[in-house]
């Protein structure tokens, strides 16, 4: 799994490439954001081909950490397999989910 960070419309975008499962999720959990905890972040999942409950847990954990500090996490570009996991566990209710990274960055800060 490869995690990269960039800036788009003044919002940090974390792009994840690969699978987020029990092997790779700990890496994601430990990821240190370059930006401050209270600034919004968009997680780009367009290159994530598979995600299981460990991946879900990692994303929920990141969202909790950020929200506790007044920040927020927005998700963008889930494929069908990833979306299904969010749907079955109802975790989709915790996130604003966009189908386009740019649209997500434009709306990320606003709540």
């Amino acid at each position, binding site marked *: 799994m490869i995690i990269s960070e960039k800036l788009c419309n003044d919002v940090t975008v974390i792009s994840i490439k690969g699978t987020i499962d029990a092997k790779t999720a700990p890496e994601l959990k430990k990821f240190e954001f370059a930006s401050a905890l209270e600034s919004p972040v968009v997680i780009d999942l367009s290159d994530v081909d598979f995600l299981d409950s460990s991946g879900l847990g990692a994303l929920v954990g990141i969202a909790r950490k950020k929200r506790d500090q007044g920040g927020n996490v927005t998700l963008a*570009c889930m494929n069908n397999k990833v*979306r*299904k996991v*969010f*749907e*079955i566990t*109802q975790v*989709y*209710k915790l996130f*604003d*989910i*966009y*189908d*386009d990274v*740019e*649209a997500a960055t*434009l*709306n990320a800060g606003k709540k």
Partner: protein
Amino acid sequence: MKALIIIKEQDYSWIREVLPHVHPLLVPICNKPFAEFLIDFSILAGCEAIRFVSDGPLSDVEHYCDDGSRWGIAVSYSSIQIADELQQVIKKNQRYCSDGKIIVISGFIFIHYNKQKDYKKLFAALPEGEILNCICGSLSLSGAPLDGQKAIVSDVALSLTGLNSIDVYYRLSMEVLGYASSPYVLPGYSNEAYCSIGSNVVITKGAEIIKPVIIGNNVQILAGSVIGPDAVIGNNVIVDRDSTVSASIVMDNTYIGEHLAVTNRIATENILIEPESGASMAMEDPHLLTGIKKIGSAETIVQSLVHGLMALILISLQLIPFLLLLPILTMQGKWKWYKNTSYTTVSGKTLKLTTATLERNGLISTLAGALSLDRLPLLFRVLSGQLAIIGGGAVVANSNTVADLSSAPSSNRACVFSYAEAEDWPLTGGDSAIVERYYAVHGNPFQDIIMTVKALFNRILEKNTP
């Protein structure tokens, strides 16, 4: 052109309480799931893609529609939050909405359209903005008109009905049913106007169908029943003998018992709903109205295995008393063998059975009766699969019973013990017939075990022949 169908949980929460077993988007209107009407309309309006968007679960809808290849259209799904307004929803689906015009259908609404009309040019020419609205939602367009003529909103020959109560649902179903030449594509085969029948439908002799009527798949209408006028029968429904269903909707997987009159109601599982008031009544007696659980092919094998196992256990328990007591009873003249021919299944096949009758008076014969030793010879037939251990009573084959047979539910099998014995009804007569027919439909392997034990128990307590 694409369609965006936005439906929130609060829009359909009322129907969840009334019809809890089906996803609101898949609620059938004349046996066609609601979502399919939306899909049909979108295709008529010229859309190549549809996206269902909701703040509630969509997995059932996704399971049914899959990727839309069945209709030749691309179907996708996405989630929103409860507080998201239209603009926010479009932003969350920006990539989907970015190229071309989007028809936005928002709310739990039914669009009245006509399959004969072509709406493509109309929608291509309409300006951006709201086209139609009603209390529960709206139909609007997003994106500029495509090149060419411009149309105005009043050109649109469509109307909306907001689905916000069971009464509206009922009246809508009756309206859709009442068209001679339907403006919608409805399921089933329809050679004549006002009548559409699905596949694997058994309508026994003596049953009557009065138009307009629509019947789903895997339905049994037994002798003497009258279906219609204005009846919608769903899939996997059994309407037992001499019942009438008119001005009513019978939802999927429902059993309607004998001699019932269902008028101006919606029947679902064991609940009858009166549409105007929304009042519903749960039927406690399952013989009158119940839901039917599908018995999968694996279950019939399980059923045979369970029956076989019970037979083995009973044989092993009864064998020794049988061998000891039989000579004594034969000498006393209380045990008589006789042969008869019974129907095995509804198809009319017969089986020659050697059974025994036992006069139950005196200590030894009472003991033999309590242990159900007279049924032992038949148990061997259960092992070979020819009989069930418990079932709807063996029907002796003679000229009187032939007529009876054709009106039996198709899952009846000849048996050693009967359900009537288990429930302690007298063995002949109307009550036992009701019990037997009910279990013939609703039997499952584990219930059979309980019923067999009850039947055995009742035999112990049976009074002696005087």
